[in-house]
């Protein structure tokens, strides 16, 4: 075990970890918004909107994320005739992927809210959207916290896939350092520990939120 190779490269790795956090945070935030819109679209009265939303979810969940990344980074530029920045491609791929999963989480959350809540809201003269916003979504969100936490953790780990398009997050940094130093054990070990240091606090945070929102 060569500790020197770890200490001398730690800063590079930590910078990569920062990139991982950044891309995950942006992807989950975008995924959150996409997911909310798509989950509502799946309950739309218009069959075309429902169909588009369903297709989106099916396609994203039914294909590997690696393929999605390649589609955006390599295939899309051929179609639009313009190069896409690796960071933009990485964030886009992760966001679009996350949105599909988050929409399913929200859909389950919304369906878990008792039907009587919608009836009570509508009987008071609230519109469908007002009832959704003030009554259904807050309750659905509460039910969605645990699976959303899981999705956040999964996204953080899956963001390592964007290393394949050369975006220098934690995984890619590790690869680059190993290419120079051949210190696979030390570097992959360190990379794994850094990932753990990021995911464990998130699961703690989720557990805390769960407790907090359950206590009324």
């Amino acid at each position: 075990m060569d500790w020197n190779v770890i200490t001398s490269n730690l800063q590079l790795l930590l910078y990569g970890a920062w990139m991982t956090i950044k891309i995950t945070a942006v992807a989950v935030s975008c995924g959150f918004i996409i997911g909310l819109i798509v989950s509502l679209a799946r309950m739309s009265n218009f069959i075309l909107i429902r169909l588009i939303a369903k297709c989106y979810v099916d396609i994203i969940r039914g294909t590997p994320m690696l393929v999605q990344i390649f589609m955006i980074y390599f295939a899309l530029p051929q179609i639009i005739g313009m190069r896409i920045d690796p960071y933009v491609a990485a964030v886009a791929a992760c966001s679009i992927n996350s949105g599909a999963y988050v929409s399913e989480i929200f859909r389950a959350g919304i369906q878990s809210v008792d039907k009587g809540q919608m009836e009570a809201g509508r009987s008071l003269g609230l519109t469908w959207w007002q009832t959704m916003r003030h009554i259904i979504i807050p309750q659905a969100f509460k039910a969605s916290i645990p699976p959303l936490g899981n999705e956040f953790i999964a996204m953080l780990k899956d963001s390592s896939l964007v290393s394949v398009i050369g975006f220098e997050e934690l995984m890619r940094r590790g690869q680059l350092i190993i290419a120079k130093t051949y210190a696979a054990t030390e570097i992959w070990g360190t990379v794994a520990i850094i990932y753990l240091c990021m995911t464990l606090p998130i699961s703690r945070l989720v557990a805390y939120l769960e407790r907090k929102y359950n206590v009324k």
Partner: protein
Amino acid sequence: MIDLKDVRKSFGKNEVLKGINLHIDKGEVVVIIGPSGSGKSTVLRTMNYLEEPTSGQVIVDGMDLSDKNKLNEVRTEVGMVFQNFNLFPHMTVLENLTLAQINVRKTDKKAANDIAMKLLERVGLSDKANVYPDSLSGGQKQRVAIARALAMKPKVMLFDEPTSALDPEMVREVLDVMKSLADEGMTMVIVTHEMGFAKEVADRVLFVDGGLILEDGSPSQVFDAPTSDRTKLFLSKIL
């Protein structure tokens, strides 16, 4: 105040309402009784279009409920109380009472709070304004639910088995609130199994079975001299 004209409702192939004709005057207290599955709750729920009829017309306060643009407006005039309360669990009692006032009636928050507090006082729960519904007993929940509906100053109140989910010792407190409403002249339609309450408070009793109104008269007419055999059979089982 309320007119149902040949209202029919089917769920799939199952026709639960087979042509309901009904006229309810302002200030009338109408109690609907009938066996479970008779369609009595469905009749009530067409009166604010929570159940949209398959055919027929529902007119409340001069407005046809099939007019989607007017539906929300009509609903603000029609308060509803549910068997399972359907309070909003993530809001305090006070917020339950002010949400629709603020968002539908556009009342400012302070005025909405004042209205809410007066109503809570009226149902004897002013000390519960800032607690969450989960900490209330069933009877208290239902009284909050009544206050929530009243906060919109409705012209009609619909009650869908308001005491069926309550422990027996809590039924009275809810019925007392309902009786005081009736005494004030509120137009009320009540689906209930509380026959004593029906006799005491109702101006009219309807017996519904098989999706039809089989009996329509004063409490003494319906309870003491029912005309249809099915009404007699039903009453003999429950009285």
